[in-house]
């Protein structure tokens, strides 16, 4: 159908209102209580227009477009009503904008400027209402509310949560929860729809909530932006909550071939940023990956598509998370990929750095098998000393992802005594066998997760007494609190805040001389500057000492590639090393980082390598049917109070003796319940927004 607006003839679709038709053709008609995702309410009367042949002015948002209609948007009466409505709103609105959280991004502010309206003809008197910052995530400043009802419609009609509504009090009508209870008590799902649609500063994100360093859409979904692998966390939690674990697994697999591994050992930076943490406890994002990997089956494989063979060959040196991830994606891009692994088994640090009680062999084997199945050739027991030579052997690109397999030994007296071990070798032997011999009393030097791994492995190798000694105080240790707790539960002793003076012993180690530390810091060369406390020297008796103070690449210096920071491979932006065609990624470049960081680096590097090999570098791999999330959340009683799924661990007295898994991963049922706790922070990003008048050509012309 056709209608004319201010003389311009436009095409309108059946069922469109005059306002919708106008905006769709970039013709601006002022509007405030209408939001693209919400039903029209006809309350603000800013969109009043004159329709030829009808009396008076009518709200365009509630007037269906009709064929042949002639609409005038700026008749005297329309302008009068429009401006008067704005004046009336302003008359009870705070007059100062500058201290408002919405300042500069406020629809009300922009509209009163557009209409050039002020309240001075009327009685200006606000309806006082204190700021309410007591709710998590959401700040209410209802003194700035203009009662447009957008939040009410969002919460009721769009989300079906029915928390916010018009309430009557002595001052008249305002927005709030029933009985004025907190959002949590009222059943709020903290979906943020109300924040998103509120045109004013009345409902905003809590002060300081959003990371100012991130663009808004990233800051609003902090879990996803905290994940180095950029896994679409809310999407897989949503599928999991529905019980659709196949879809959940597919979402994760779209970004990484290691869902089960990550679900077992990822340090989950996402959980630290999870917005639900402000409500009660963060989602168990990490463990649900493992559940997805196990309950999700192999359906994703049916959608996996390997590109036609390119005839190009890529070599990957090292089969850790970085190397295997890159290998997988390069194979998917149709390249012929061979992975070289120096050790007898693939997996890199996953295999020999992480103890089996945290990451069982079978699980790792399963995940690696799926990668190899994708068309990756593996050659174990082959050490590549000079990666660039592979280019001469017919490979078109080489990735060095050799990791950091050389443990750091501090230059202490006695470090060469028998009984002094180093983390990397110790953990490797524990994994590959034979189980290393340790004495009865073991002291582990270091305060990170690897130190905890060494200590707990030592227990399992037969040590009677294991002590972790480290420079940091307990609360400064770099090991994650969970791992410290698990170790202490198993009987590991902690001697924190000490510096190591020497390793004592005649023929064998007999102990470590330590001294308490008053203070320490790291200088610009990242060397520790320590102030010891006089007279606090003491001997920690030991027959085995294990260094767990860091690790570095093994043999990188002799690879014929440029180094940086001493021992690490130097790379450019795209991951390219100093020889064209050779790339490097993972710990061998960055130093020891988490598995997900290494895997993410491997993926990024695979993009560059694909381009180098003539591809487009696009690794996107849709493994699930496209689906729209359901915006209607509905009510869930007690939603805010629902507790985080507690980790189920074998009792410490049982588990400390063997290498069987410590933790039992959540099953599909419990996992779905946990996933349903997610606030779905990404949902609000799907909401539209009202464009400001200056974004329309005729808006810029003014009233």
């Amino acid at each position, binding site marked *: 159908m056709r209608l004319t607006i201010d003389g311009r003839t436009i095409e309108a679709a059946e069922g469109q209102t005059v306002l919708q038709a106008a905006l769709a053709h970039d013709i601006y008609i002022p509007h405030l209580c209408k939001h693209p995702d919400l039903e029209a*309410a*006809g*309350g*603000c*009367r800013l969109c*009043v227009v004159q329709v030829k042949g009808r009396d*008076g*002015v009518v709200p365009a948002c509630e007037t269906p477009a009709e064929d042949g209609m002639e609409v005038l948007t700026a008749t005297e009466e329309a302008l009068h*009503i429009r401006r*008067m*409505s704005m004046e*009336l*709103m302003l*008359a*009870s609105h705070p007059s100062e904008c500058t201290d408002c959280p919405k300042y500069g991004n406020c629809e009300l502010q922009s509209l009163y400027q557009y209409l050039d309206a002020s309240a001075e*003809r*009327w*009685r200006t*008197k606000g309806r006082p209402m204190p700021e309410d910052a007591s709710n998590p995530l959401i700040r209410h400043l209802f003194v700035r509310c*203009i*009662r447009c*009802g957008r939040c*009410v*419609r969002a919460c*009721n*009609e769009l989300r079906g949560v*029915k928390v916010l*509504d*018009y*309430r*009557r009090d*002595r001052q*008249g*009508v*305002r927005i709030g929860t029933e009985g004025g209870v907190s959002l949590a008590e009222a059943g709020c799902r903290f979906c943020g729809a109300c924040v998103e649609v509120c045109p004013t500063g009345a409902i905003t994100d809590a002060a300081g909530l959003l990371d100012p360093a991130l663009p808004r859409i990233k800051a609003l979904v902090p879990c996803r932006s905290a994940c180095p692998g950029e896994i679409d966390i809310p999407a897989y939690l949503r599928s999991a909550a529905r019980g659709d674990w196949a879809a959940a697994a597919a979402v994760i697999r779209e970004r990484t071939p290691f869902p089960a591994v990550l679900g077992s050992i990822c340090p989950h930076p996402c959980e630290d940023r999870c917005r639900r943490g402000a409500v009660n406890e963060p989602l168990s994002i990490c463990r649900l990956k493992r559940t997805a990997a196990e309950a999700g089956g192999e359906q994703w494989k049916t959608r996996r598509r390997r590109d036609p063979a390119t005839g190009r060959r890529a070599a990957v040196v090292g089969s850790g998370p970085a190397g295997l991830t890159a290998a997988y994606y390069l194979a998917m891009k149709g390249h012929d990929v061979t992975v070289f692994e120096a050790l007898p088994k693939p997996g890199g640090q996953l295999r020999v750095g992480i103890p089996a009680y945290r990451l069982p062999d079978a699980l790792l084997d399963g995940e690696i098998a799926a990668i190899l199945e994708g068309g990756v050739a593996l050659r174990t027991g082959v050490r590549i000393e000079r990666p660039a030579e592979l280019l001469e052997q017919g490979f078109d690109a080489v990735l060095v992802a050799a990791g950091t397999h050389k443990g750091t030994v501090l230059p202490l007296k006695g470090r060469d005594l028998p009984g002094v071990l180093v983390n990397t070798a110790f953990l490797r032997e524990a994994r590959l066998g034979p189980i290393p011999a340790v004495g009865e009393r073991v002291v582990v030097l270091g305060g990170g997760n690897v130190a905890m791994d060494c200590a707990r492995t030592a227990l399992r190798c037969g040590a009677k007494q294991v002590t972790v000694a480290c420079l940091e105080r307990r609360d400064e240790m770099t090991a994650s609190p969970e791992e410290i707790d698990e170790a202490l539960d198993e009987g590991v002793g902690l001697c924190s805040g000490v510096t190591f003076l020497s390793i004592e012993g005649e023929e064998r180690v007999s102990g470590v001389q330590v001294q308490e530390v008053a203070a320490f810091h790291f200088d610009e060369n990242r060397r520790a500057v320590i102030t010891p406390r006089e007279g606090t020297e003491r001997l920690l008796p030991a027959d085995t000492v294990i260094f767990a103070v860091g690790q570095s690449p093994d043999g990188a210096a002799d690879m014929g590639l440029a180094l940086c920071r001493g021992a690490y491979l130097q790379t450019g932006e795209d991951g390219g090393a100093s020889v064209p065609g050779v790339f490097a990624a993972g710990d061998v470049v960055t130093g020891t980082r988490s598995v997900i960081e290494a895997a993410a680096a491997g993926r990024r590097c695979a993009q560059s390598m694909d381009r180098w090999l003539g591809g487009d570098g696009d690794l996107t791999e849709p493994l699930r049917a496209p689906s729209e999330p359901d915006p209607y959340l509905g009510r869930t009683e007690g939603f805010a109070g629902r507790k985080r799924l507690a980790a189920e661990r074998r009792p410490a007295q049982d588990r400390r003796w063997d290498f069987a898994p410590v933790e039992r991963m959540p099953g599909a049922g419990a996992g779905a319940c946990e996933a349903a706790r997610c606030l779905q922070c990404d949902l609000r990003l799907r909401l539209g927004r009202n464009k400001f008048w200056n974004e329309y050509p005729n808006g810029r012309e003014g009233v």
Partner: protein
Amino acid sequence: MSGTIRLISPARAGPIGSSPAAPERPAFDPGQRRQILVSGPGGEAVHKLPGRLKLSELLDRYGVQPDRIRAVYLGWPAGQFFPCEPDRELELDCETVCLAGREACMVDLLARLALDMRTAACGRCVFGREGAYQLHLILSDIAAKKGRSADLDRLTELGGAMRTQCACTLGQAAGGSLLSALALFRPEIEAHITKKICPALVCRPFISYYIDPALCTGCQACADSCGEEAIAGRKGFIHVLDRTLCEACGQCRAACPQGAIKAVSEGLPRLPAKPVACGAWR
């Protein structure tokens, strides 16, 4: 004292919550008799009344002479004002009827009406919510002697806009109520604003009390009743009221057995400055 209408406890509040703004009302059937709350100078009473009747019949049922009534208001808080014309045919499509007595001040009545409109507004639309809010602020300012010269224009503009632009019939009717009041009582409202008088002597800020020296017997009843100690005098002396202390509460007026205490809103007569013996003032 003023015989103004006792206001019905804040009106049936409009709907609240996200239910539709306008309540479903059964269609008006003039043949059907319904319970109607009538309030007026004689208090509140419920009468069973037909849908259509003459004003004189209504006044009869309520028990008041037409000359004691100056206007009739059908509906609450939104409704319509009519002058007191006994032969007028009324259509009672409402639940309440208000009879404004001769002594009533329409500004005072409208200010209270506006407060009820403000609290009853469902809040969904700007003209209903903010319109009623402004109505109340403006009318109570006028009643408080703080009226501004532009106020009548503002009220007229507001009434018109509310009648056409409110999203529900309740708000539209509120606009209509205002317009009907302005049509009937404009001079009285104007007097409050421009002449600063309340002709009905109801709005306190406009009222000055004085003691008529010709009637005062010096009985001291008024001085005893005054909480502000605004009245001076001894037994047998003409008492004198200090208007700088007087709060215009009207206690003394009720206490005086002689009817010597009088109210004006303009033009005080000549009065003694100090108490003088009764009979000594001429």
